[in-house]
Structure formats: structure tokens, C-alpha cells
């Protein structure tokens, strides 16, 4: 596909821009890596020792040389060495990423499975009590902070239903799928229900627009039953804004969900970035941000392809 190659060609340029910004930004934060790493013990270092450490991490050079070294490394697939973990940055990220990806996917599935039917239902009951109820819940869902949600879900599920998931260290999906899912279900619900609230609101308003369109009236005039009018004729036309919103939210989730990861003690990308920034792990911050940016680009591309799949006017152009 012509369009896809065209988009893929722009990726390196965007990533280059992101890399410059993050490279400079992290170095503008006060404090230095060595102090952050060693804490108070850093005061005990002799200037020579400090110099040696700086040379070891390559942070004694002027910034443009540091950048050039890092950039050339990138082309060899080398994102640098994390000062916290003492291992290649890419390996650290890839270790954390499956969890984040799984959590994001689960949340999105919950959001779409709950949000689209709720929005469609509310739109067909426009201004009736059931519509108002759905809108109220959506409003609450959108405005409640994540941590409140998380605590509520833990409380309701464990106290009322006596469901206590496997605690302790995180189990990857391929090691024990059941244990893995039971660990992820709470955080996925937390993220997914807030996400579902936005999906509900946007699918409701898109459906309301579409339901008053002429072709919906045409469908009714030819005797299509209400269910077919709503799901077959109206919904496909209302999905574009839903896809847009889901793409953006999903992109954010791939960047990690710091608060939820913290509450449920999950080793995801969010906490990784937080730790890296706190400890001035330059290589790790740069690597993760670049990785997140790359994910965003991929998600955007998928969103664009989804538009084309949904709407023949985009797919075929105006011929």
C-alpha cells in the first residue's frame, strides 16, 4: 500500500525530532547522574573518581558529542546502558513492555465492549431516563481519579465477592496465563472502565448525529427492523470518532499507567520511566521515551488504516 510506505518514511524524521527534544530536556533537569546514583555517598567521591565515573558513562563530553554517540548507537540497535540496571536499555524496556501492552489491550477490550453498547443504547433512548442514567455513569467514570477507582474495585470485588487475586510478584502471560490474568484483571478494570466512560460519551453523541441522517431514514423506509437500522446502518457510520478516541487513549496506555502500576505493584513501563527520571538514568529515559513515541506512531498508523477500513470514501477517494 502506497499510503503505508509514505507514512513509514516519515517515521525516522519524527523520531529524530523526539530524540533531540528528550535528549536536551533530560539534561536541563537540575542535578547529575552520579549524585542521583550514589545518593549522599556521592559527596565522598574525590574529583578524580567522579571524573572517572563520568567518563565511564560518557557524560563528560559536550552535549552534541553525547548526542552523536547515542544516535550512531541507535542505528546499531544500541540504546545505551541503563545506569540503574547496568544492562542494555532495550533489554530492560522489552522486559517491561509485554505487561504494559497486555494491560493496554485488556483495558481497551473492556472499554469498547462496555462503552460502545452503552453509548448506542443511550443514543437510541435519547433524553429518556435510561439515557440520563448512562450519561450520569459515564460522567462519573470520566471524572473519578484512577486511584479512587482502583480502591473501589478492590473493595467491591474482594470484600463483597470475596475475590482475592494472586498477589506477589508478577507472573508473565506465557508462564501461567490464569495467574497472570487474575493479577491483571483489577488494574485492567480500573483503566478500562474510565476509558469506557469516554467511549460511551463519544459513541452516544456520534450515534445521535448519525441516527438523524438521511440514509437511516432510507433504511427505515425500506422496512429494516430497528435492530438492523441501529447496528447495521447507523453504527458503522458512527465509529470514526470512537476509533480516533480509542487510538489516542491506547497510545497513552502504552506509555504506562504510573498510578495504577504503583497501586497494584506492577512492573510496567510507567514506573520504569518514573524511576529512570528520578535516578537520572539518561540512557533509560531517552530509550523509553523514544520507544513510547514509536508506539504512538504505530498506533496512529493503525488508526488511519482503521478509518480506511471503516469508510469507503477514505479508502477509495472521490472518484
Amino acid at each position, binding site marked *: 500500500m502506497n499510503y503505508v510506505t509514505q507514512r513509514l518514511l516519515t517515521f525516522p524524521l519524527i523520531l529524530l525530532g523526539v530524540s533531540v527534544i528528550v535528549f536536551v530536556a533530560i539534561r536541563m533537569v537540575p542535578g547529575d547522574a552520579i549524585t542521583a546514583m550514589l545518593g549522599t555517598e556521592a559527596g565522598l567521591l574525590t574529583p578524580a573518581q567522579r571524573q572517572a565515573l563520568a567518563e565511564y558513562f560518557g557524560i563528560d563530553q559536550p552535549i552534541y558529542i553525547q548526542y552523536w554517540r547515542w544516535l550512531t548507537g541507535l542505528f546499531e540497535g544500541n540504546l545505551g546502558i541503563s545506569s540503574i540496571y547496568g544492562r542494555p536499555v532495550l533489554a530492560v524496556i522489552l522486559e517491561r513492555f509485554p505487561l504494559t501492552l497486555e494491560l493496554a489491550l485488556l483495558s481497551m477490550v473492556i472499554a469498547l465492549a462496555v462503552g460502545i453498547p452503552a453509548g448506542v443504547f443511550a443514543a437510541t433512548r435519547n433524553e429518556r431516563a435510561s439515557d440520563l442514567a448512562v450519561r450520569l455513569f459515564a460522567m462519573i467514570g470520566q471524572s473519578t481519579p484512577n486511584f479512587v477507582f482502583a480502591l473501589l474495585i478492590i473493595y467491591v470485588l474482594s470484600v463483597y465477592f470475596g475475590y482475592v487475586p494472586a498477589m506477589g510478584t508478577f507472573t508473565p502471560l506465557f508462564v501461567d496465563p490464569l495467574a497472570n490474568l487474575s493479577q491483571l484483571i483489577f488494574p485492567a478494570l480500573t483503566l478500562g472502565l474510565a476509558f469506557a466512560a469516554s467511549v460511551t460519551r463519544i459513541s452516544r453523541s456520534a450515534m445521535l448525529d448519525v441516527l438523524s441522517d438521511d440514509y437511516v431514514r432510507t433504511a427505515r423506509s*425500506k422496512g429494516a427492523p430497528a435492530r438492523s437500522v441501529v447496528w447495521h446502518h447507523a453504527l458503522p457510520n458512527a465509529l470514526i470518532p470512537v476509533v480516533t478516541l480509542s487510538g489516542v487513549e491506547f497510545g497513552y496506555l502504552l506509555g504506562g499507567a504510573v498510578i495504577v502500576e504503583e497501586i497494584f505493584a506492577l512492573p510496567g513501563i510507567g514506573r520504569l520511566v518514573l524511576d529512570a527520571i528520578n535516578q537520572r538514568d539518561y540512557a533509560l529515559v531517552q530509550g523509553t521515551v523514544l520507544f513510547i513515541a514509536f508506539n504512538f506512531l504505530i498506533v496512529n498508523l493503525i488508526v488511519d488504516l482503521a478509518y480506511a477500513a471503516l469508510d469507503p470514501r477514505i479508502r477509495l477517494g472521490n472518484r
Partner: protein
Amino acid sequence: MTLLTVRDLRVGFGRDPRANEVVKGVSFTLGAGKTLAIVGESGSGKSVTALSVNRLVDFGGGRITGGSIVLERGDGSRLDMTTADEATLTHVRGRDVGMIFQEPMTSLNPVHTIGAQIEEAFRLNRGLTGEAATRAAREALERVRIPDAAQRLKYYPHQLSGGMRQRVMIAMVLASNPRLLIADEPTTALDVTVQAQIMALLAELREELGMAMIFITHDIGLVAGIADEIMVMQHGVAVEQGSLDAVLDNPQHDYTRHLLNAVPHFTFGNTVRDDGTRNGQPPIVTVDNLAVRFPVTRGLFRRRTGAVHAVDGVDFDLVPGETLAIVGESGSGKSTTARAILGLVQATRGRIDAKSGRSGRPVQMVFQDPYASLNPRLNVEGLLAEPAIAAGQRVDAKLRERMVTLLERVGLSRDALTRYPHQFSGGQRQRLCIARALMLNPDVVVLDEAVSALDVSVQARVLDLLIDLQREFGLAYLFISHDMAVVERIAHRIAVMYAGQIVEIGKAAAVLATPQHSYTRRLIAAVPAVARRRQRFTVDATQVPSLVRPVGYEPPPAQWREAGDDHRVRVEETA
């Protein structure tokens, strides 16, 4: 045999439908196989009446507040549509009552192929699936004269023209062989030659299938050829109803007479203006060999693969006090020509000379849609001040004086100044647009379909105003329109555009009475007229040629022939 009996129908909208009735007690009967035309202007309740018959009005927020609608169904049973439940209504819609709508551009679902949409109708109403449904859909398309039917089934609506889409709508209705077809202004959005094709098709199918029809329109000339009975509606009431000939030849109600007489009707050049003044004055606008092309690009590097020749080699001039009408169908390049004269699009080639006479800005424009061309956040004073501000003038007492003079001149009062566009009707808004165009005292006003969006009787009054203003200020008008009846009223000269070129130009009377070019003849033959109501049209499926040309293509120079005093015709290529 009575198919449909409507008694004292009342329909209201909003929270209190009884207090907001738009249909106030309408009664009529319709025999099997007969056609009833409901004629009226916007707000008359004609569409609401029709939508009540199949109860689609419920989905637009309407409620039937009284009366009955009794339909005889295919099995001979009688059903009161006003009390039927939704499940029964779903059966009746499509199976007994089919409907086609005003806007073919938006009436088909953009995400499904037309094949899928026609097949759905066959599935719902005849229980056909798979191969059988596809075959039936193809046959239905062939029946409405769509070429390459098998191929077209895979097309999406946006790949078809408006006329084609309306045929697809008709094909969909055919699926159920309905006893009653409701046609809600089915040709209003279409070009006049396409309108003639659709009307001919509807007449043909009606004979073939023996279906009854309710035909809704604002154009009393259009129904003359198709209706058996006419019902004229105004303000939710049927003011006159009767057989076609009785109503047209011997109208009883004032409003019917008004629709028949006051409204522009096409008369083949018999009612053109006789105040034409072409006595050797120098032209105020000269257009010489104008061409406007839009590039067609392709691929990653936007390589130019051709150009749309929207306007190609157009010449004309315009003298003070004269109206030149440019007529043509959508895509003929008439609006692009107007935009090029105002500099709103870049001319690819050619010269446009507009002499600055009275002011620095000799050419002003009035657009088609009075709802979209006034900024809703500005009051009238702000709207009228804008051209002056753009020209670097100060908003002072003198300017306000001019605003008031012009407002009064276009028939609005001085207190309009502090009001906002939404407080005016469509006709009043168009008057505001005209006043705005006159603020800088122009020599030329370009009117791009300026009365097309207005109701017919409002149209007549705005045209009269335009003619008065022209005489008073010595304005030259470039009047772009697709409506031959309107053009006949206002034009001194007419230029007929087809596929980006002028094919015929000359005195209005000559062009309309003795059209020379084959396209002009086709155009004039397609105009519906009360006087021609016994004439039958045949289905003609001529398509406008594509205007996309390869890079570097230059059209051959035009050959012209004189057809009389001030009447020139482009010589047609003989194929």
C-alpha cells in the same frame, strides 16, 4: 378502489405536539394506481403529511395528534397507520409503501455498496438471499437504466452522480413492488435534464407496476406532467384540492393562483425583459479566453497526471445596466467562472478586465446560501460594515447612514441594524446579502444561484427587487443559475455553459425561443412547464463528458457561427 384514505390528519412537534401542529386537519383519498401531487412551499406541512403516511415522521420528532390514515394492504386488509404498532409498521414500510427522498447525495448509506443496499431491500421484502438477491438487485438496476449494472453493484454511493443515486433509490423501492410510492421532492436537488430523466422513469414504472404515488414538490410546473390529482398546501392546511386540470385551469384559491401566476414559470422566451440597453457603451467587464484548471495528482510525489478543465476558453463582456445570465448544470463551470472573476480562484489563462468605475471595488458577490453566508456572531451593522472596513473605510455616521438607506432600499427597516442573522427569514437574509454587496457602490454584482435556495414566491419578490436595484443604480449583473424560469425573468443576455465552455450566447429572447446548440435544446426541452403538461418525456441517459484531461492538453480553438443579431453558437463537432 381506494388505496389510502386520510381523514383530518393532525401532526405536531416538540414537547407539546398539540400546541405546535404543522399539519392541521388534512384529508384526502388516493385510488390504486393514481398519483396525487402535494404542492406547497417550505413549512406548508407537505413533507410532514407524506412522512405521516408511513409513520417515518415519528423518527423526526413528530406526533400524530389526530385523524386517521387507512391503508389497504396487499392482502386486502385495512390498517389504520395512526394506531398501528411499530412491528406492523416495519412490515408496511417497504412492502406496501415505498419512499424516495429529496437528497440522493445523503440518502444512501456511505459505508455499504449500493449492491448490498438494494439486496437488503430484496431480503427484507421478498426474502431473497445470496445469488438470488444479487440477481434481483442487478435486474432492478437494469430496470432503472443504469449501464453496467453487474459492475455498479460493487460501487459505493460516493462513486455515483446524484442522478445515478436517485435511480439506485428507485431500484431499491422496486424490490418490494409497493402499492404506494411516496416521492418527497425527488428531483429538487438534481439538474434539470437529470430531473427530466427521473420523471420519465417514474412515469414509466408507475404504468408498468400500477403503483399509486404521492408526489411532493414546490414546483407546480413539475407535477403537471405526472399527477392525476393536486392538493395545494399552505400553513398546514390543504387550501385547494381537485383533479389536475381543474386546479391548473380553473384555480379557486388565491394561493393557487399565486403559485401559478406570480411565481417564475418558463415560457420559452416570451416573457424576457424588454429594457435591454446595449447601445455601444464600453463594457464594464471583459473576459477574454478564460481558463481555470485544477491539477490532478497521483502517488507519493504528487505527480501531475492531468488537469480538470473546469473552465476552458470562456469569453464574454458585460455592459453597465445589463444582466448576463450564465446557465448550465452542476459541473459546467459556471460558478468557477464567477469565482475567477472575483479572484476567488486563480485563472490558469486568459484575461479578466473589470474597470473600476464608481469605487475601488467594482465587483461584489451574493452567494447561494443565505444561511451560510452571513456570520451568525455579527449583527447586521457589523455585517454591513465589513466590506467598508475591508476597503479601509471608517465606520462613522455617514457609513451608518448608507446602511440605513440600503436596508430600507432592500425592504428592511432601520431597527434591523441591531439584530442577528438568525432573527431573519431566508428571503430577508438574502436581502441582507444584497445590501452588503451594495455597500461599496459596486458596478457589477455577481449573483451565484442567489435565489435558488429561496421558496418560489420569495424568489419572485427578490427577483423584482434585483431588477429595481439594477435600474436605480445602473448595476451590471452576472447572474449564475441553473433555473431557466428564473433566468428568463432577469436576463438580458444568456450564456449557456456545458462542460467548461460557452456553447451558445446571445440575447435572452433569441437563445430561449430559438436555441441552436443541441445542448441548449436539450436543456430547454427538459424544463417542466404547465403549458407543456401533456407532453411525454422519454428516458435519455446522456452523461456529461469527463473534464479530466491529460497534462498539456489544449482544446481545439472554438468555431463560432452567427445565428442572428447578437446570437452566437459554438459549432459542434460532428462525430
